[in-house]
Each structure stands twice: as C-alpha cells, then as structure tokens.
C-alpha cells in the first residue's frame, strides 16, 4: 500500500479533508461569493469549450483521443521502460518513486546535491498530491509557485480549487486584496495591472532560483520528450532559467509516439479553457548541450506511482488513468459548480477527483465522494478521452459497500448492516410481485429504506404523495372497461 499518509502540511494553511465533504459543501453552499464565483467561471468555461469545438468533428476527435490513451495504457510497462531509456539517452536522468513521500525525498536529494535553497515551480498537480512545497519548506528549501493562480493560492495560504485554474474560487476584488496584503501591490480592479505586478515579482525570483520543478502533460516514449502545456511562460522560465530542472509526473502520462501528441493537445486546450492553442507549448528533450547558451545543465524526470499501478491492475478502473487533466468534467459538473473545489478536500476535485482520490487516499477517507454525484452524465459527455466517469462512480460505490472486486483500499468501509438489510428488503419486495401488487403499502415499506435520511427531502420539497391506486390497478380497470366497451376505448374517463 502506498497511500498518501505523510502529512507535512504546515500549520496555518487552510486545510480541507474529504472526510468533511458534507460540512465543507455546507459552508460553500452558504457562501454567496463562492457560489457566484464558480457559477460565473464555469458558465464561461462551458461556453468557451463549446465554441472552440464548433468546427470540429468532436466525436471523432474524442474517439481518437480515447484510443491513443488506451493504446498507451495497454503498453504502459513497456512504454515506461522505453521512455526511461530514451530520456537517459537524451541526458535526462530518470527516477522512480513508489509513492509521494519517496518522490519528495528524491527531489530534496537532488536539491541538496546542488545546495539549492530556492525552488521555483511551474504548475504541477502531482506535486500538490504529494505536498511537495510543505516538504521542501521543512527541509529548509523555499518553494515558490510561478503559475499566477498557484502563486495567488500560495500567497493566500490555500490549496488549488481547480486543476487548471487553481485560483478560480477568487474574484478580482479578492485577488487585488491578496496582492495588496501579501506583496504591497496597490489595490486595483484592473487585471492587467495585477498580472504585471505579479509577473515582476516572479521574474526576480526566477533569476535567483536554484532549481525549477515542473509537471508534464505528455511524456513521449518514442523520443524521450517531455511536453508541457501552459499560457503564462512560467513553465518555460521554470524549465530553462534555473540550472537544474526536475520534471515530476504520474506514470500514466506517457504516450507512445510523438504523433500521438497533436490530437491530445487539440483536445486538452479546447476542453480545458476553450483555446485553440496555448501561448506556450514546451517540448523538453535534453539538458543544455555543448555550445548552447541557455537551458538547464541538468534535467531530471521523477516518475511517480502513488497507487497508479494498483489502479492499472483492474481492467475497469484502468480507464481512470486515461485522464489528461483538462478539468472539463469539473467545469460541467453541477455539483462542483455549486460546492467549489475546496469542498472535496482532495488535490483533484470534481468528478475526476471522485474516481481518482479513493485510490490515492483510500475509501475510508473519501467515502462521501463517489456518492457526491447525481450521475447526470455531464462529465462523461465532455471527457475528451471518453472516460466513463459515471460508471466508475458506480463501481466505486460498489467497492464502498463491499460489492466490488475489493481492488480499492478501504473497500467495504461504507457497508452498514442496516443499509444492507434495507436493500435486501427492497430485493425481496421487488422479486415478489404479488406482494408488490398488494399495492399502496409499498411506498410505506420503501420509505423505511433510509429512515434517518429520507426526512431531509421535505426540508426543500413537499413529500411525494403515494397515489391512491397503483398503475397495476389502473391497468386492470382499464383492460376490464375496454373489453366491455370495445368501441369507446380512447374516450373513457378514469375515476
């Protein structure tokens, strides 16, 4: 088991935990600012995505994207070895980490071997997953986020609320306030002024950083190339200015060939932000070569497992690993839109988080996440690589109540004798049609399914009223009246 147990988050940082999903969601729902910020942002993102795919055969492209990811996963062990060999041949040193803690240690050791005191980071969710910043701080190494959203979240002592737009929970006024409080920037509502101020602050830090840490969007096995998709140029600065670059990625981000990248890139940018291209697309294939004037002298790649190889063992759960981290599922999720990213208490919020986090943290921690979906299907509909997210949510519900294959840590944790008995009761009733037909007593019996919880329905709605009669009874009467009045069958009145 390689569950993320090393909690190194420092005091003071606003922390959320999936165990408290209900409370956190309650707080978010009661916060009109949070509600408004997410609604506005998600509406905008949904429109942009739709418009950006307007002239594309989206279904064909999604099919292609899904197949590329499926092919990569089918060959994953071989591709990882090939990636390692080709990276090493290119001069990129490859490290394997079984879990987040080991990955943190590898990164720290690289930093220490260079006497590094200052690390500048490009956006990387896998380093959020392992709490790298806090780990490095404890080792006396300062880690500074350089993605604007991550920078704001770090200044505000928070965690990202979205995997693509970490500070999406903040509006312009709140951002202005944070920049003012933490950096002395003059208060303004002008986004360009704020961006320019943050850029200036970050530029100075880039020049002084000893090590740059970035994520990876696609790691190409065929060529040993690390692709990084970004808009702010901070990714390029992070990976070229400091003398050492450490790229960190989950093992699932590998693709087979260079030609696999353009379709995935086309899907990623449009699904995420509705962009046809991003401002920067970096392809890192080696450290600085002899005679070159810039680029890092050392490039490292840390491949992190952290539960992924366990997901890989299950042919259904495997689909979780197709994800290219575009965030479209959260942008389109009616639950995420209302409760925001922090309520989930996980690195990855929203639908993808609810199917991934149980593997990373165990079902005991995350047992409320697979049920935090109405199974409306919006996530699966927009997923660029066609992950059957609703089916995987149901699969995890099965695992939670101990009716799955037991391949998820904490399987069975949600099973209670009472609920199991209630569903057995439902089964008995629904497989005894004569009893079922006995009629109106059935709703009363079904109501007993979740006696403690069904009451909450009526806090917001009137109670469903069992009809005085059943369809079974109506049909019987209807058929009887038809046989008596064969010519009048379409005009009869039911009592």
């Amino acid at each position: 088991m390689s569950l993320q147990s090393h909690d190194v988050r420092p005091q003071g940082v606003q922390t959320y935990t999936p165990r408290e999903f209900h409370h956190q969601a309650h707080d978010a729902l009661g916060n009109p600012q949070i509600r408004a910020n997410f609604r506005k942002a998600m509406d905008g993102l949904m429109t942009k995505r739709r418009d950006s795919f307007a002239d594309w055969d989206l279904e064909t492209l999604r099919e292609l994207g899904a197949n590329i990811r499926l092919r990569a996963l089918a060959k994953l062990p071989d591709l990882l070895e090939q990636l390692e060999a080709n990276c090493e041949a290119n001069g990129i040193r490859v490290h394997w980490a079984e879990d987040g803690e080991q990955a943190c240690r590898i990164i720290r050791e690289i930093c220490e071997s260079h006497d590094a005191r200052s690390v500048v980071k490009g956006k990387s969710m896998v380093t959020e997953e392992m709490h790298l910043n806090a780990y490095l701080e404890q080792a006396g190494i300062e880690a500074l986020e350089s993605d604007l959203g991550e920078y704001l979240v770090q200044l505000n002592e928070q965690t990202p609320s979205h995997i693509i737009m970490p500070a999406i929970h903040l509006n312009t006024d709140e951002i202005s306030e944070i920049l003012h409080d933490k950096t002395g920037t003059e208060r303004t509502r002008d986004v360009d002024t704020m961006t320019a101020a943050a850029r200036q602050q970050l530029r100075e830090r880039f020049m002084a950083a000893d090590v740059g840490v970035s994520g990876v969007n696609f790691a190409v096995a065929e060529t040993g190339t690390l692709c990084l998709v970004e808009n702010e140029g901070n990714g390029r600065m992070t990976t070229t200015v400091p003398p050492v670059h450490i790229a960190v990625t989950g093992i699932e981000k590998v693709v087979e060939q260079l030609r696999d990248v353009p379709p995935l890139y086309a899907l990623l940018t449009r699904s995420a932000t509705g962009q046809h291209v991003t401002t920067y697309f970096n392809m890192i294939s080696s450290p600085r070569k002899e005679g070159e004037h810039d680029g890092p002298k050392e490039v490292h790649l840390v491949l992190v497992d952290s539960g992924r190889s366990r997901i890989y063992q299950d042919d259904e759960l495997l689909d979780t690993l197709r994800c290219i981290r575009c965030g479209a599922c959260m942008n389109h999720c009616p639950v995420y839109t209302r409760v925001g990213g922090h309520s989930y208490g996980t690195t990855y919020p929203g639908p993808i988080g609810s199917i991934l986090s149980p593997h990373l943290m165990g079902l005991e921690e995350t047992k409320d996440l697979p049920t935090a979906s109405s199974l409306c299907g919006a996530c699966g509909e927009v997923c660029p690589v066609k992950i059957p997210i609703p089916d995987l949510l149901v699969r995890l519900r099965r695992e939670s109540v101990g009716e799955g294959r037991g391949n998820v840590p904490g399987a069975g944790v949600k099973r209670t004798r009472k609920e199991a008995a209630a569903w057995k009761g439902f089964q008995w009733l629904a497989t005894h049609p004569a009893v079922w037909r006995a009629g109106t007593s059935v709703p009363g019996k079904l109501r007993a399914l979740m006696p403690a919880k069904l009451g909450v329905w009526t806090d917001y709605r009137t109670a469903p009223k069992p009809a005085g009669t059943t369809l079974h009874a109506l049909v019987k009467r209807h058929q009887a009246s038809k046989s008596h009045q064969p010519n009048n069958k379409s005009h009869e009145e039911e009592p």
Partner: protein
Amino acid sequence: MTPVKFYPSKSEKVYFFGTCLVDLFYPQAGLDAIRLLEREGIEVLFPEDQTCCGQPAYTSGYQQEARAVATAQLDLFPKPWPIVVPSGSCGGMMRTHYPQLFAGTDRESQANEVAGRVYELTEFLVHVCHLKLEDSGAPEKVAMHTSCSARREMGLAEAGPALLAQLGQVELVEQARGAECCGFGGTFAVRHPEVSAAMVEDKTTAIAEAGAQRFVTSDCGCLMNIGGRFEQQHTPVQGEHIASYLWRRTS
C-alpha cells in the same frame, strides 16, 4: 453521443414497463402513456409481475440486489415486441446497464436481447409511431425538462420537445441551462440533500424565469423533485409527466 439507432416500423403489440415511480406515485401518467400508444393502434401488453428495474440498488452499489431484481424483470418480455418505458432513467438502466449488470452471467444474452428492445416513451412515439398530434388545449407557455438519462444515456434531447412542438397552442419556452441536472439523482437527493436542494432551487428559478406556466418531463424522479420544490415554494408552476400532458391536450 449515442450511436445512431435504427428504429423498427410500428409493431402490432408492445410491452409496457411502467416503472416503480409511476406505479406508486404517478399511475395516471402510465395509463395516459398506454392510451397514447393504443390510440396509434398498438396493443399494449402490461406484464403483471413487473416491479422495478433495479436501478436504485444498482446506483447505490448494491449490485447483487440489483441483479436479482433485474433478473425478475427479464422473463416478463418473452415475445420479440418492443418494450416501452415512460422514463429515460429506467429506460437507460435497462438499455445501457442491463448488459453490464449481466455480463459474464448465464443471463447475459437474454439481458442483451431485452436491452435491445427497450425504448423510452417519447422516443417510441416520435421515431417509431411518428405520432401526429392535434392540440385541443388552451394557449400555454411550457418548459420541457428532459432528464439527464434521457438526454445523455439515451440521446433523446430532441424527442420531448419535438412532440410538444406539435401542440399548436403551446409555446415551448427555453430555460437557462436547460441541460443541467435538476438534482434528483435517486439516492443522491437523500445522501447529499443540501447539494441536491441547491440544484433544484436553480432549476425551479430557471423554469419560472423563462415564463413557463407549466413544466413537463418524461421522468417521474425529476417531476417529484422539481414539482415538489415548486409546491413547497407555493410557486404556481405546475408539473406534469409528458404522457399525461399530451393525452390531456389531444383527447
């Protein structure tokens, strides 16, 4: 998107699977659906032993219990007639999830065969019956709420509106974010009541703001949820199952 489905020509008989919500809470909608089908000259068979498709247990993770309940339904449709279901949710369960539920069991081929004959009511009326409607009701502004299962699982976003568009006196009004879930989601509404409430609140607001006097839907879960919210707010927007609405205005 669901793959293109080829529809059969209208059959002499159909099976009607009423669903448990219709059976217990909205039986009139079931009867109205039957009468709409009969008016098209179809004989409607109602297997008496039908109970529930098993979905509540299925989506709660109780797979064995769901399979037992579903198994009891599989034998109810022995002849090759279409199976018409007045719900996208139960229809989606039977068409999409029965094959998954029975994969690798000795009922697999039967489940696939039954699943292939399942049609949601509005789908069947539009694509198989090519239903033509004469509106005899008063002028009215109506919003359609297509359930998520009908829309996404069964690919039927167009079927309900296509039927309503035939009603000359009915103005179909567009609500904001019409494709968004109403927050029912079966046990979701009881497991996450506050989130569900926030969703249905937005849905009723959108329908009311669209100027609708009534909303119709093809799923009784949504009807119970949205209608129950309107009723509790004392908002004079009525909810109705599309089968009852169509029957009432054209009979």
